[in-house]
């Protein structure tokens, strides 16, 4: 049996239905020299994650049409390939109960809107410090 090749994944899944925020996050992720894999809503993210788990992190908007960020995280927590991926939830919610529920469901970090480029960069680095060192190639 050949030894399975491993490499550090530089891909970050970004799911947000708002084109403004989506573009902003994509630019910020790429500025940090990661590859942003961008989808427009939770359903697209769900479909992609079913066949592709090679991400070093995921960034979800909390409220999206079809499938919300929290639903995605619950799905990811049931799949061993996906549960290792740290998730950053971006939200303009200020309800502490909702935030607590999100952490319970498996969110790694929260970033409230609005955020600055500096806050995003710091949060992303913190998020990625939690990831496994290596991920299998897809």
């Amino acid at each position, binding site marked *: 049996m050949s030894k399975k090749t491993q490499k550090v994944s530089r891909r970050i899944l970004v799911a947000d*239905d*708002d*084109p*403004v*925020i989506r*573009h*902003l996050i994509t*630019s*910020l992720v*790429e*500025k940090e020299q990661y590859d942003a894999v961008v989808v427009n809503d939770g359903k697209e993210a769900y479909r992609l994650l079913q066949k592709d788990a090679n991400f070093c992190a995921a960034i979800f*908007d909390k*409220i999206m049409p079809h499938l919300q960020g929290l639903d995605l995280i619950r799905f990811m927590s049931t799949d061993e390939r996906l549960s290792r991926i740290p998730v950053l939830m971006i939200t*303009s919610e200020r309800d502490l109960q909702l935030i607590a529920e999100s952490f319970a469901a498996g969110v790694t970090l929260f970033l409230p*809107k*609005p*955020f*600055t*480029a500096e806050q995003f960069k710091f949060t992303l680095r913190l998020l990625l410090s939690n990831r496994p060192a290596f991920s299998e190639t897809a």
Partner: protein
Amino acid sequence: MAMSSEIDDLQRLITVAPETTDLDTGCESVDMAVLTSFEESQLDGEPDLVLELIDLYLTETVRLLVAMREALTNKDELSIKRAAHSLRGSSSSLGILQMAFICDELERTEFKDMFAIASELLKCMEQEFARVSQILLAERQRRGE
């Protein structure tokens, strides 16, 4: 890039820009320091990020305002609030403060006469967007389109 019907909507809104919005919160319409702070995330060789954000915001806001107006006609409270929530997120993120404030008011409206209040707030939002558009388009022009 905005579609022609959206540009028409935008031009219609801008031409009716009032000096002030009916719901004046005292905060400035656009905190340009927030918007231009994203210049530091500009990637080499890529189009101007701030300019792209301005274009996306203008196009998306027209779409959301039209959607809210339709939802109001249909008395669809959920769609109004979803659109307001989305607009609050993008507005606050780009430093478009008063618009974010009005969206927040609309999201929080829970009264029986919600649709009457929503109608007033939507009117305020359209007035405010006219002001915001002028400021953003001026910034767009300053950046050399």
